Each structure stands twice: as structure tokens, then as C-alpha cells.
């Protein structure tokens, strides 16, 4: 029962964003049943975008059944309620409705996109998918076979081999060490009960984050949210995950696979999103290996030496661990050279930090480029959900520039030492000339 629905809306918190997106205002709204959501009203394109996340991703899988959460996500549009798989897919496409479901290590992410005229139908299909997934045997076995074929292909895929081994070695015995898509062995074991169990434990209203961008007012948005999520249990039922730090630092592991180009994954401990040094670390990592054409690694590995098409380094953070993780792919006879350059640049950054000029340039980039991450409804909705997950506050977009400006060269140097002074775990898939595994074996 919904009592006095309209009266239950919390006062909206209006955030104007003068420097980033002048037209954008984020309202914090509360649905009649008490689900909080962030809303951006956007009238110029006739569509609605909804983005949401539940706490509890692939790290909820049992070790022997890894891939179950991912499998569940792939089955949610394969029939729900009275609608079998065929009918469900027809209903979606007849109205050009897009439902997306994705599983990360910590979260289950969903997205919905629909034309305004099909908004109600879209919300109804989402509600059915989340609350009454059918998991019919035909669909389960068909999708399982699809996932197994991808896992079989991965056996000789150097990117997958290098990455999988990196996580396994960095987090042995911990859920973060397992691939979200599982393995051939574990995926063969997952049963319908495991899928139902995952859905039951994770799809709940507490820890649900919701963002909406579209031509809707707060009352309508609240009603839509309740129709989509109001029928879910009040509270999730998650297994606790322990905190972890990556191990295997100083080790290099070579995985033999016959490819012309060796794929390299490298990294070590990162920094928690809530850590006071996070922004300094984020800036320093951008200078070393961030995604523009001016990072140190890009210049040294690609531009000066032509050793690779791409090389980059990123901060990756979860609730219970954080890593700094990089990758490249180089010809087999020069892999050792590329790795030496990467190690040398990482060490140089740890010892000396960035220059004042680099720091200023990186700050300028990171401030200016933020607007580019907020120029479509989908990007805005996804960004707002991530800000909610990271617990940064509804005014984060407004505060972000001053957080960047506040980082001093000393902060940057300290962060560089902390990030890159620990040595790295390196995995290489291919046949790199003159490179063998080193360090302790398992």
C-alpha cells in the first residue's frame, strides 16, 4: 500500500554545475516506497535512461561455482513472469527497449533505455526481469553453452590468459582472484538453484543506487522507480568479503601461447577510493600511464621506441581491495625491452614523482575532460550511479575541480612513492624472447 504518495518526496537537492555542465541539475528524490534516486531532467532528446546498481557482484559466487552471478545477468532477459524467452525478446524489440545487465566484482549493474512513448512498457519488463526471472531449462542450457564457448575460446586468447593469471596470483583464494565469467569447470556446475539464490540475495532495496536521465518530473520518476524496484525485498543477504591486498609483487609469470605478439599485464597495490590521497594518486597515475597521448609510458614505449600500439595504466578500486593495473602488447623479440622501459619509468616515478609542469598539465586535463564524460544521457546516468557507489556525495561533480587543484607537488610525490614503490606483479602471455618466469612459484 502506498499512502499519501506525493507527500513522501524528500525536498530535492538542486546542484547547479556552472563549470562542467551548465544545463545540468541533479535532484535527489525519494520514491513513495522510500527508494532514493538521483534525477537529471533532460527534455531535448525524447528518451529515458535509467541506470542502477545492486551491491553484490561476482564476489558473491562460491569458489566452485564462479560465473554464477554473470550467468544470472545473461539470463534475465530470457523470460520472466508469464513471458517466455521468445515473447520477452519480442516485447523488448517491438518497442525498441534496451535492457542491459552486467556483473562486476562488487556490483550488479543495470541499464534501461527507451523512447518516452514506451517508458511504461520498459519499466514493466525491467520489473519482471528482476522480480520474476524464469530461468527456463531451455534458456539456461542455451546460454550456458554460449558462455562455455566463450570460455573455450579464451583458452588460447593471450589477453584473457595474461589478465586471468594476474588476478589469480594477486588474490589467491579470494573472490577477487576469480574471473567474473568463471571457468569451464565452474560454469558446468552452476545450477538453476544457484541462479535463483544469487537473484534472491542480491536484488534488494537497501544498497540499491538509482540514476535517471530523461524528460520526467520527480513525481513520475518516483512512481517509475517503485514500479521497477518496489517489489524487491527490503534487505539483501550478502556473504561478507574480506579485505585483501595484491600478492606476488616482484614476480613475473610467462604463460606459453603461440601468438606473434606477447600480451603483458602488470600492476600492484592501488588506493582506496575513500583514501585522502586518492586524488593525488589518480593524477600521478594519469601522468605515468593515463589514457591520453602524453603519458610517460606512451611516450617512452610507443612514441620513442615503437614497441607497442598501446600501453596504459589505471587505478582500479573495489570495496575490499584496490590495485593499479597496466597492460601492453609487444612483439616477442622486444617484450623484454618494453618491460624494462615500463619498470624503469615506474621506478623513476616512484623515486622522483612528477615534475611541477606535468602536475599542472595533468590537473588541467582532468578538470577539462570531465565534461566529456557527461555529454550523453547514458554517460550521465552511469556516472551518477558510480558517484553514489563511491559515496562521494551529490555535490561531487561541483567539488571535483577544487579537489584536483588542492593536490600539491609534495602530495603527488608521496602518492607516487606509495603507488609505485612496491614492485609489480607481471604476467606475460605469448612467447617473449629471453623472458622466463621468475620469483616464487605457487
Amino acid at each position: 500500500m502506498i499512502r499519501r504518495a506525493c507527500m513522501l518526496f524528500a525536498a530535492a537537492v538542486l546542484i547547479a554545475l556552472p563549470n562542467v555542465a551548465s544545463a545540468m541539475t541533479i535532484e535527489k528524490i525519494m520514491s513513495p516506497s522510500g527508494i532514493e534516486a538521483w534525477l537529471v531532467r533532460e527534455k531535448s532528446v525524447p528518451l529515458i535512461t535509467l541506470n542502477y546498481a545492486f551491491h553484490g557482484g561476482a564476489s558473491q559466487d562460491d569458489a566452485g561455482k564462479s560465473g554464477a552471478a554473470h550467468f544470472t545477468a545473461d539470463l534475465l532477459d530470457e523470460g520472466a513472469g508469464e513471458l517466455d524467452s521468445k515473447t520477452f525478446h519480442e516485447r523488448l524489440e517491438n518497442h525498441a527497449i534496451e535492457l542491459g545487465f552486467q556483473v562486476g566484482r562488487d556490483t550488479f549493474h543495470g541499464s534501461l533505455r527507451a523512447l518516452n512513448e514506451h517508458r511504461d512498457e520498459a519499466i514493466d519488463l525491467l520489473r519482471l526481469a528482476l522480480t520474476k526471472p524464469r530461468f527456463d531449462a531451455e534458456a539456461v542450457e542455451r546460454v550456458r553453452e554460449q558462455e562455455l564457448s566463450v570460455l573455450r575460446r579464451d583458452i588460447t586468447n593471450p589477453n584473457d590468459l595474461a589478465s586471468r593469471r594476474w588476478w589469480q596470483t594477486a588474490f589467491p583464494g579470494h573472490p577477487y582472484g576469480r574471473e567474473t565469467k568463471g571457468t569451464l569447470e565452474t560454469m558446468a556446475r552452476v545450477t538453476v538453484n544457484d541462479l535463483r539464490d544469487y537473484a534472491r540475495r542480491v536484488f534488494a532495496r537497501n544498497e540499491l543506487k538509482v540514476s535517471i536521465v530523461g524528460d520526467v518530473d520527480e513525481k513520475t520518476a518516483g512512481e517509475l522507480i517503485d514500479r521497477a524496484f518496489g517489489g524487491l525485498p527490503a534487505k539483501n543477504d550478502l556473504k561478507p568479503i574480506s579485505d585483501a591486498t595484491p600478492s606476488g609483487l616482484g614476480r613475473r609469470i610467462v604463460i606459453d601461447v603461440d601468438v606473434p605478439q606477447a600480451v603483458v599485464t602488470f600492476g600492484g597495490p592501488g588506493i582506496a577510493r575513500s583514501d585522502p590521497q586518492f586524488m593525488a594518486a589518480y593524477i600521478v597515475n594519469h601522468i605515468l600511464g593515463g589514457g591520453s597521448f602524453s603519458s610517460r609510458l606512451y611516450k617512452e614505449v610507443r612514441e620513442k621506441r615503437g614497441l607497442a600500439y598501446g600501453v596504459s595504466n589505471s587505478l582500479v578500486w573495489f570495496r575490499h581491495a584496490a590495485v593499479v593495473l597496466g597492460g601492453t602488447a609487444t612483439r616477442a623479440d622486444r617484450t623484454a625491452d618494453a618491460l624494462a622501459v615500463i619498470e624503469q619509468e615506474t621506478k623513476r616515478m616512484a623515486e622522483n614523482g612528477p615534475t611541477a609542469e606535468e602536475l599542472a598539465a595533468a590537473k588541467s586535463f582532468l578538470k577539462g575532460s570531465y565534461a566529456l564524460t557527461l555529454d550523453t544521457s547514458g554517460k550521465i546516468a552511469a556516472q551518477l550511479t558510480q558517484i553514489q557507489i563511491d559515496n562521494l556525495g551529490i555535490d561531487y561533480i561541483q567539488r571535483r575541480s577544487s579537489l584536483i587543484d588542492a593536490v600539491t607537488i609534495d602530495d603527488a610525490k608521496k602518492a607516487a612513492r606509495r603507488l609505485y614503490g612496491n614492485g609489480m606483479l607481471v604476467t606475460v602471455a605469448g612467447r617473449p624472447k629471453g623472458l622466463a618466469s621468475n620469483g616464487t612459484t605457487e
Partner: protein
Amino acid sequence: MAALLAVASRAQSAPNGPQVSDFILGNGLELVVIPDHRAPVVTHMIWYKVGAADETPGKSGLAHFLEHLMFKGTAKNPAGKFSQVVARIGGQENAFTSQDYTGYFQRVPSEQLRTVMEFEADRMTGLQLTDDVVLPERNVILEEQNQRVGNNPRARLSEQIDAALYLNHPYGKPVIGWRHEMEQLSRDDAIGFYRRFYAPNNAIVVIAGDVDPLKVRMMVEETYGKIPRHGTVASRVRPEEPPPVAVRSLTLADPRVEMPTLQREYLVPSFRTAKRGESETLEVLSHILGSGSNSRLYRALVVDKQMAVMASAWYDANALDLSKFGVVGGPRSGVTLQQLESAIDAVITQIIDKGVTLEELERTKTRLIADAVYAQDNQATMARWYGAALTTGATVNDVKSWTDRIRAVTGEQVQGAAKQWLEKQRSVTGYLIKDKSPQVEKRS
């Protein structure tokens, strides 16, 4: 400057879509402006009407190599300066090459549009290259080839199918190039190609974002507009395909294949070479045949017969010359590629014999027309859509009226297109299988 005033303005809007403006400068440069005022950012793209299909025989990969070398500086702006400025203002940049076009873009805060325009105009004719930047970059493209193709058996298969499909037309060469030719590409090759094709009268500037079209036009006239027209940009007349007469197939065995794949490509008209409405009919046909869970191929092979783990079809309208219609399938374990192929043929034959249902037709149109609305949510998508269409023979009005033409496609036309174009002798079928012969380790 007065002489360079725009000579044409054909602003006209599709219902509910953005007000797209189109101008042609006195020096032949075309300008398209797509307003999007939701965020204070702009996407600035330049599209040159030159691609891999315009390379001299023996120089495969050159168009793409030049695209990389365009970041190596000019007399006015030494290597790295443009990228440094883009990074400092918080911009994104990149470039891409296809058979028919080469594009460069920056995404920046709106007030920085002029800055990037000045750099981009400068490198239209001011590129300077020396071997100390050219040679490392040649290694970069060789690594790119490894990453995209060498390490990827399915990409290797596609390359072989293209080479077999086009008997005479240069679309048979990979855009990235053949390695033995890429290894020989030189500074002089790149500069020669650049001087032949990079000119205002061979380029289209597409600007999408928070801008005023008239102000943009002034800006473009003051930057690109000052570059003189190139007297002799070669027209793009490529060797034509003879009528295809033989059913072709090929097999690629690779030791890394854990999942066999069947891929077929048919030689079909592009938007430019098609009769009016024919290209849109092929889009509808490819969607009904093989796009998504409701498609004929997916329903028959993956769901009903349980023979495949994937099955899909695609069509590319954006090509200056004859284009491709593709079908892909991956068998379930225990099913052979031959069994899968027979099942695919049966699905195609059924459309040829019985046509498509009204429900399928309506669903597909709804989906395709919605895609055009969804594209409006992303200024970069809009810019790419216009750029790719305009460099492959379409006009701004063709793009604007695309949804009307999709709406007009009939079931009879879809059946007719399947009958006319999905003939086996128009196609090459490629089988990707596991190479089980003992591998000799190549160590030098």
C-alpha cells in the same frame, strides 16, 4: 576572405531531429554543423575523402600509416604540440582510417573549438616528417597489425575472405595492410600520398556540439578557409569488380582456434551504388535475418535447432563502391561447420521463397528508426554518422531522410533483395578451424 564566403546553405531539419546545417566554402571544403546544447563540449572532426582503397598497388597500409604520421608535427607546430594542447584543455583526440575515408577528431570544451581548428587546419598541408619519427611509428603500426589481426584468428579469417571476395577492386586489401608491404613503407610514400589527397576540396569538417552554426562557419572560413584549393585531387575511380560467377570457399586453420567459425560475405550494393531504396532494404533484410535474439538465424540455429552458439548477419551501407553483406555462425560442440552451413542456407532460402512477416518488418523498422533517435543522445555518434555517409557518396539530406526511406521498405522488396543479392555465387564462405598439425616452435 570575402571570396571564401559559403556558397551553399541547406539547413533543414528532420522532424524532432537536430537542425543540421551544411555549407561549402569557396575552396571546396564542406562543413556540417550538428547543434547539441546539452553539455558545453564540442566534437570537431575532419574527414578526408581518401582511404586504403586509394593506395598505389604495393603500398598497402599507407593511408593508415599516414594517419599515424599526421601526429608528428608541422613547421609551425612541432611534434607533440597539438596533442599537448589537446591534453591541457582536457580534450580527447584520435583518428581512424577505412577503405574510403580517413578521419581525425578532437572532443573539447566548446570555447576551445577554434584552438583545435587552427591546429587541424595547419596540419592539412603543413606536415613535416623525418625518419627519426617515421621509423618508430612504422613499428607501431606493425604492432597494431599484430594486435588486431596477428593475435586474432577470426580477424585473420575476415582478411582472407575480403581478399577472395574482391577479384579486382582494392577493397580486397586490408586497411591495416599486408605486413610485407607495411614493412617497406617510407617517409616519401607517406608524404607523396599526403600531397595527393590532403586538401580542403577533398575534406569535410563535421562539428557537433554546443556551438552556433554561423559562428562556426566564420571560424572555419578564418582557418580552413585560408588554405587554397588543390588543383588536382584525383577522383576516386577504382578498378571495378567483374560480375561474380563462382561460389567460393576457403579454410583457415589456426592452432589457437578453440571454437570453429563460419563466416560468409556477399558482394552487394552500397548506398551509393544501389538503386534508390535498395540499400535500406538490405539494412532491413540484414536485421530480420541476423540482428539480435528475434532474428531468423538466431531463432532457427541457436534456439530451435540448438546447433549454434551464435548466428548473426550484418550489412555495411557506407562504401563508395560495392559493399558487403555478412553472415556469421559458431556451431555448438558436436555440430560441424557443414551442418551449420546447410542450416544457414535453409534459413536464407526460406526468406527467398516465402518472404518475411509483417510483424518482423514492423519490429525491424521500429528498432532501426529508434536507433536514429538514440544516436541523437550522443554528439560523437551523430558526427560519425554524417561523416561516414558524406565521405561515401551520400548527402546531408540523404542522412536526414534515412528514417523515411527505412519506413518505406516493403516486405516484397525485402524478399526481392534476398533473392537478388544473397546468391551463393556472389559470396565467399570462410571456415575457421583448429590447426591440429604439430607446431614447430619458431625461435630465432
